[in-house]
């Protein structure tokens, strides 16, 4: 039975997973991404796509898309969420972030504007009070048929999984580097609302499949790719 279940899981496990390529003086990992591979097929065959990258500003990603004639937008939502002016309290008096204020200043785009949104690991590290509002806004700025890629840690990844930035270095290959917060972001007294530390962002929660399906319930379809490095890649279509 164990061999049957192993074979069954192989159907869902892509070849995604990390490879460590040692580079002098750097902490970069590369990982193969099945979700990225699927998206690449789309943007290699299309022209003039509108792409939104919600990770740390990446010249590599900007070059990747602009060289292919696509329009590239960059917005680092995790860093934006460390703005101390967002601090408020919820109905129970617990610290929270003001999602209305956040969305008034971030993700301000016309409706149905983007063909592709790269969320990377944003939902795993974003403050709880912002996750659903942000996903709702992403739905509205994606074109019908537009695609969103997001990464979620599984429980086996552990609570101390570092937050990485992602650079596209191949059709299905990403280079990952641990994010270090800017000095200004470190000074933000976000407390329990953000749990950002001097070393970087902390994993806020672990989504299971049902949570992920609920999070994206307004989207037309959802596809899961389970990788060997305890990352669940999700490709959703509006």
């Amino acid at each position, binding site marked *: 039975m164990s061999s049957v279940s192993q074979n069954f899981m192989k159907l869902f496990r892509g070849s995604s997973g990390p490879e460590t390529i040692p580079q002098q003086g750097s902490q970069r990992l590369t990982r193969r991404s099945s979700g990225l591979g699927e998206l690449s097929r789309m943007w290699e065959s299309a022209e003039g796509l509108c792409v939104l990258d919600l990770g740390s500003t990446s*010249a*590599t990603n*900007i070059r990747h898309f*602009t060289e292919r004639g696509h*329009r590239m937008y960059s917005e680092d939502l995790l860093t934006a969420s460390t703005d101390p002016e967002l601090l408020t309290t919820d109905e129970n008096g617990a610290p929270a972030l003001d999602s209305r204020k956040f969305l008034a200043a971030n993700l301000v785009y016309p409706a149905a504007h983007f063909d592709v949104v790269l969320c990377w690991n944003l939902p795993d590290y974003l403050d709880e009070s912002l996750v659903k509002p942000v996903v709702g806004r992403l739905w509205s700025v994606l074109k019908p048929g537009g695609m969103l890629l997001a990464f979620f840690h599984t429980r086996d990844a552990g609570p101390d999984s570092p937050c990485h930035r992602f650079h596209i270095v191949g059709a299905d290959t990403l280079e990952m580097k641990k994010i270090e917060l800017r000095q200004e972001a470190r000074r933000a007294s976000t407390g329990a609302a953000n749990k950002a530390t001097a070393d970087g962002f902390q994993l806020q929660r672990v989504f299971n499949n049902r949570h992920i399906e609920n999070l994206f319930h307004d989207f037309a379809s959802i596809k899961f790719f389970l990788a060997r490095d305890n990352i669940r890649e999700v490709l959703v279509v509006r």
Partner: protein
Amino acid sequence: MSAPAGGLQSGFAQIGKSVYIKGELSGSEDLYLDGKVEGSIALKGNSLTVGPHGQVKGGVEAKSVVVQGKLEGNVQASERVELRKSAIVTGDITTQRLSIEEGASLKGKVDAQRADAK
């Protein structure tokens, strides 16, 4: 372009970090800006450098733009835009060549033919 030593030099203008300007700036020489400017900057054919203490709130048009500080506004450079690691840019960038150091922050659209990673 780094801050020139020993004061103003011919063909090179400076705005020091204690200076605050509200209004449109235009010129026909290179500009090093380390102060605060609220308004557009037009230096067609010349270079603009926003120093580490520089803050610009307004659109920028120049031949090349180097940002080390903060810039809020659209950037149009006929040749090149360079974001150093301390740069925080909010606005759209239109240029032929874009260079971004790791650590720089950009929030906006990029309309470039080449983006170089550093």
